[in-house]
């Protein structure tokens, strides 16, 4: 028995999403789509150098354009209080003193903001702002710079490196990955509206309204309660919406300056420089095993890029500490400051990068030992205890993911030797790799408003960035209460609603399911309280013995005799019944370790003459605890796996070290995977409840679908061709030129 003794009768959930109708018909509004009276438009001007200082800015020509209201620069913008004081700025957690410095840290850094009556006027005027600079030497070449940065221990060393220096099998390899960008469909945008001096409304694209509220509160010295943030519909994020970027304070400054609502939406090219990316990385893995393939030790070193003004670190080596048993282990890391925009969490941050190296190295070792890479992994999995903390995993079914995936792709039919299977000029290969992600949970609140007709609205400040959070909440509320799906409305993404953390790190559903369960209990108890006025036996009622339906409340000890909602409402003369509750992790986190796991299997074909890689099949089996809504969960995994295909084969935000910048800023030239690059991803779930994580028994599923995907594909390419590709993305030129 676990911490949470909940019923888990699998219930059929209706197809579709709670927000589907509103998105498809356009009646659901994304941040930039709100229509506000008297709104004007702002367009950003970015720096054209990567490092140095602004010497002069000429805004006269821009100001001459009809319709232009003002042009903000570091010389005339309204003061952001936190930027007047370094300590305050630090506390605000906003590292770019945007328009509050003449220093340039990266190319594309906002240096001016044109505000005009129309977007067209603002856009044209922005092209007329001229800036002269004093240019410094910029550091953008990660390969060159990382060699100069020392590496340091991260996490506790286990055993010793000497203990396995004579291991019968040792592999040591370096792996590299280029910069990748999030670029969700909806571009980052903010509409800022001041009400007097101290009250602010923000319509903003982000993954957490409360985070925006807190950050802006600290930056502008306004109490959080005076800041309302609306993000009802969010068109994707992949992590880029977990931070507050310069568009938010800029829109707020502009609105203050012109004393009108101001809308600022980034352009697609600006999306490539101003809202984060997955930083370029270098990793070195040394791994040793005995003659039978038992892992003896690992050294995992990692460095990745960061910006000169904002030290961002992602835990690339973390994954090596978790998935397999390594008696001896050492992990080291470093960040490499560069004159590029700030990187940030991007789907499966850290682990996704780390898994490429770890799971490639294991694969290399398997061919050294001549042991099936599937079996080698199975033999070394740490499914009982978390090797890092020693705590028992609450649940970890990664072994079952592997077995099931192997069956689905018919792993045993594969020729164990690489570069053996040919169809015409195509070489065929199979690869496997595992992914793991901590199954986190935070505290959140939710409320329910019940109407006379028994319909309810469940609400929380949490956003739904397209993951199906709202739909999952409806499914859980139905499971907990018994009220029909069509009588459960969901309201999200508004800072006036009960507080919730940002939606990220695959913690959204895990976090909010606790709050939904708690508020469902609260509703039952509130109704039981009213019912007890009619039937005293309800005084002793506990949530688990209360049953709600569309018509009323029933209680086991009262012979399940139904008291209708109608009766309760009219007897007590109620208009609505409202309850709110919070829930968060507790003692269970002391006792157990939590993880979600995924096994990726991939079948590729590689053309011998052109280097083209085609993915024939991609299977992903996931242990995500209880699957609340299979369609939504599978959709997350399949999207993540397609992201993994892009990461592996084509995505690269190229850095030009001569000109000190990212080059190319459009989706025609940045090659995320399209439908034609991906087969239908074959997703399945172990679907076993985690009884200790939260009341729903569900673990997060957003990240694991990408963690391990890259190695599975690269391993399949090796099996097909005998060529080991250790630098992502594996574009056709690299396949062609690689030696087998």
């Amino acid at each position, binding site marked *: 028995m676990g911490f949470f003794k909940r019923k888990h009768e699998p219930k059929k959930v209706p197809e579709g999403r709670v927000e589907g109708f509103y998105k498809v018909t356009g009646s659901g509004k994304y941040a930039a789509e709100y229509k506000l009276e008297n709104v004007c438009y702002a367009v950003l001007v970015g720096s054209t150098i990567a490092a140095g200082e602004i010497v002069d800015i000429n805004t006269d020509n821009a100001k001459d354009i009809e319709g232009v209201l003002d042009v903000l620069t570091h010389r005339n913008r309204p003061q952001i209080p936190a930027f007047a004081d370094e300590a305050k700025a630090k506390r605000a957690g906003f590292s770019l003193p945007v328009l509050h410095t003449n220093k340039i840290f990266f190319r594309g850094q906002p240096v001016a903001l044109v505000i005009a009556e129309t977007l067209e006027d603002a856009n044209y005027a922005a092209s007329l702002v001229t800036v002269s600079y004093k240019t410094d030497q910029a550091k953008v070449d990660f390969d060159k710079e990382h060699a100069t940065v020392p590496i340091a221990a991260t996490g506790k060393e286990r055993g010793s490196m000497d203990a396995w220096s004579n291991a019968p099998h040792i592999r040591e390899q370096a792996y590299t990955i280029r910069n990748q960008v999030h670029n969700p469909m909806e571009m980052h945008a903010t509409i800022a509206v001041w009400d007097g001096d101290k009250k602010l409304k923000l319509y903003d694209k982000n993954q957490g309204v409360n985070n925006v509220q807190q950050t802006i509160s600290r930056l502008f010295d306004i109490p959080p309660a005076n800041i309302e943030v609306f993000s009802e519909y969010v068109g994707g994020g992949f992590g880029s919406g977990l931070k507050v970027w310069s568009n938010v304070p800029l829109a707020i400054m502009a609105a203050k300056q012109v004393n009108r609502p101001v809308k600022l939406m980034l352009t697609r090219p600006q999306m490539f420089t101003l809202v984060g990316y997955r930083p370029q990385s270098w990793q070195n893995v040394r791994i040793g095993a005995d003659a039978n393939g038992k892992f003896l030790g690992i050294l995992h070193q990692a460095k990745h890029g960061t910006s000169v003004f904002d030290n961002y670190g992602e835990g690339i080596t973390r994954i090596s500490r978790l998935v397999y048993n390594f008696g001896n282990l050492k992990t080291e890391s470093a960040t490499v400051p560069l004159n590029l925009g700030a990187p940030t969490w991007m789907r499966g941050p850290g682990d996704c990068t780390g898994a490429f190296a770890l799971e490639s190295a294991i694969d290399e070792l398997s061919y050294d030992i001549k042991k099936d890479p599937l079996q080698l992994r199975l033999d070394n999995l740490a499914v009982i205890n978390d090797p890092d903390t020693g705590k028992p995993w609450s649940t970890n079914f990664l072994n079952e993911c592997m077995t099931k995936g192997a069956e689905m792709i018919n792993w045993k039919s594969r020729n164990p030797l690489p570069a053996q299977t040919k169809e015409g000029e195509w070489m065929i290969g199979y690869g496997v790799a595992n992914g793991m992600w901590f199954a986190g949970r935070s505290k959140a609140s939710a409320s329910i408003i019940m109407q006379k007709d028994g319909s309810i609205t469940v609400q929380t400040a949490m956003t739904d960035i397209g993951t199906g959070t709202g739909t999952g909440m409806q499914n859980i509320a139905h499971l907990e209460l018994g009220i029909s799906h069509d009588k459960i409305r969901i309201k999200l993404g508004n800072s006036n609603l009960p507080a919730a953390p940002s939606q990220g790190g695959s913690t959204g559903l895990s976090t909010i399911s606790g709050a939904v369960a708690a508020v469902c209990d609260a509703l039952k108890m509130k109704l039981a309280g009213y019912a007890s006025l009619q039937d005293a036996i309800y005084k002793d009622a506990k949530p688990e013995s209360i049953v709600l339906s569309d018509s009323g409340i029933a209680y086991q000890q009262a012979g399940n005799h139904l008291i209708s909602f109608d009766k309760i409402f009219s007897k007590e003369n109620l208009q609505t019944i409202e309850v709110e509750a919070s829930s968060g992790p507790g003692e269970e986190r002391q006792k157990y370790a939590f993880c979600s796991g995924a096994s990726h299997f991939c079948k590729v074909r590689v053309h011998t*003459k052109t280097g*083209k890689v085609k993915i024939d099949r991609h299977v992903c089996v996931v242990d995500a605890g209880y699957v609340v809504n299979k369609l939504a969960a599978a959709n997350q995994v399949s999207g993540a796996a397609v992201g993994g295909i892009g990461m592996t084969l*084509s995505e690269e935000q190229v850095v030009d070290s001569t000109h000190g910048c990212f*080059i190319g800023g459009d989706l025609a030239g940045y090659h995320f995977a399209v439908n034609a690059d991906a087969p239908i991803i074959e997703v399945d779930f172990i679907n076993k409840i985690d009884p200790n994580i939260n009341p729903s028994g569900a673990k997060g599923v957003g990240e694991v679908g990408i963690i391990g995907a890259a190695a599975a594909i690269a391993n399949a390419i090796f099996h097909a061709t005998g060529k080991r590709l250790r630098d992502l993305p594996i574009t*056709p*030129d690299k396949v*062609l030129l690689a030696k087998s």
Partner: protein
Amino acid sequence: MRPFTLQKPTTIGQAVSGKKESAQFLAGGTNLLDLMKKHISQPDRLLDINSVLSEKIESTAGGIRIGANVRNSAAAANELILSKFPLVSHAILKGASPQIRNMASMAGNLLQRTRCPYFYDTSLPCNKRKAGSGCGALKGETRMAAIVGHNPQCVAVHPSDLCIALSALDARVIINGKDNKETSIPFKDFHKLPGTNPEKDNNLPANAIITAIEIPSNPFNKNCSYLKLRDRESYAFALVSVAAALQLNGNRIVEARLASGGVAHKPWRWYEAEKFLKGKTADLSNFKQAAEIIARETHPLNGNEFKVPMLKGAIEVALQNCLTA
């Protein structure tokens, strides 16, 4: 975007007489409007020519005439083109996306500008965008750049797929000049190499309008193929592409056509290799030799050397595909 006025001429005569250097014709707008939004092209006047130019595909005494305003998707699905000039359809369908092809006109496709990232970023040097500012790609990122016909002034490539097929099939570009008289330019002379004025992509006379494309009848409808190698399977420009066509007599090659995209400032014909294949047996060993001849013609840049082996592979595969087409 810079403010502009929009005019809608109703005849070809009106269109050409209204055209000045500072004005631009607007067809599908899929390239021009992007360039205007990025302040790369800044016309003060747009002449919408959509109701002026032909949308017909007609059979003529010598071949086929495709109106300048035919949409790329319509041309790709046209019965006449599919039966007589399937290479054209194959090439179009490898370009852009269905949505873009639905808007893109035939003339606009010929005149689309390079996709070199330095051309697209107004804060970087580019001789094609701003004469005399230098070539950013030469010392920067050359992955997509040319391997033949380039010079230090410009290493950009022409991005079109359609044009590679038209080049292989010796099409002609039909134009009306300022005098409103119809003349034509052979396809091989239509686009140009960068020379000393890379800001010019082609030899279309100033202010002239393209009214049609003609392709002479040819025997290449049975054995032809278009192969495009790129970083993803759809919605990406070519690393290298090959239009190949063979006229066969049994196993013998009577005539061969080979052209490539992604390699030069203009659609590039491989005349030497074509000459080599003429009269030879259509087999892998001869295809390999043709690919070798082609490889010898190339001069890759620092950073895009991979295009040579890739091109060789593409030539072989495209020729092989002609036999199974």
